[in-house]
């Protein structure tokens, strides 16, 4: 039955147009490895090179968000070097339209702030997105941010067909956060 179960799971993923699926602890090595396979796959398929570049950019920003901010993991309490963060990644295509979806647990108290940020960038046109991107690159790094704080803006910039996001309450302290970027 094992093969049958796995084959069914594979079939379900295939039906959804999913090319890559990863669920588990995400490390920088996994980011590099999956990233290389994605690039290879797109190259072998002769995917439009600008679409491939945008997809790769979105993938990197999404994965680095999980590595830095997922609220589910091992040793994540006091910013230790050997921490591991849990996340879920899908790369798929609706016909020829690629998307990158990423999901992870976050702290519930971050939902309001994230919603405000994401709604704000969702409403911007390309010119204003670029303005915000540059402003953020020049500005101070937000408190509690380990990156440039521009990851979401970059995703919005690269997702030419827009992005969707959702939150789902899990318990008193955690929510499940999902972001789907349409390349």
């Amino acid at each position, binding site marked *: 039955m094992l093969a049958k179960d796995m084959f069914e799971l594979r079939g379900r993923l295939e039906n959804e147009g999913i090319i890559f699926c990863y669920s588990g602890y995400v490390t*920088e090595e996994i980011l*590099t490895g999956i990233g*290389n396979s994605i690039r290879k796959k797109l190259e072998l398929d002769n995917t439009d*090179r*600008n679409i491939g*570049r*945008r997809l*790769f*950019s979105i993938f*990197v*920003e999404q994965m*680095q968000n999980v590595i830095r901010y997922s609220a589910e993991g091992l040793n994540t309490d006091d910013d230790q070097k050997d921490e591991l963060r849990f996340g879920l990644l899908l790369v798929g295509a609706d016909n020829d339209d690629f998307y990158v979806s990423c999901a992870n647990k976050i702290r519930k108290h971050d939902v309001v702030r994230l919603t405000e940020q994401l709604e704000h960038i969702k409403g911007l046109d390309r010119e204003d997105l*670029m303005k915000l*991107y*540059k402003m953020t*690159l*020049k500005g101070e*790094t937000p408190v509690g941010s380990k*990156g*440039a704080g*521009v*990851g979401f*803006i*970059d995703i919005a910039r*690269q997702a030419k067909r827009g992005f969707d996001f959702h939150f789902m309450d899990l318990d008193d302290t955690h929510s499940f956060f999902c972001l789907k970027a349409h390349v």
Partner: protein
Amino acid sequence: MENINIEATERSPEIHFDFGSNTFALKGESYPEDVSTFFGPVIGALEEHLSGLNGASVTFTFDLIYFNSSTAKVLMGLFDTLDEAAENGNDVSIIWSYEEDDDNMEELGEEFGEDLEHAKFEMKAYAKK
């Protein structure tokens, strides 16, 4: 100052900083795990060197295939540093090299270059390798 030559890795660019001839270059991919650890020391050395220059001719070439948003922040800072060196009496040229069909690199080059007030800026498209 001793020259800096760092080989590229899968995720970090080749760095060539020649302090004698004032030619500097970043080439390749940039999405390191920790941008501060990777770029901090080399950019620190560059800033120190530039702050002591006057009347020098400086060339910085950016020849990047891909960089993430954390790297973009570092690059923005570098542009500022180079523009400042130009303001302080040096002849500074920045070259932005990109693959001709790369819309994103072209757009970012234009946007980064637009904010320069003193340094010279040149976009160089090259044919697909």
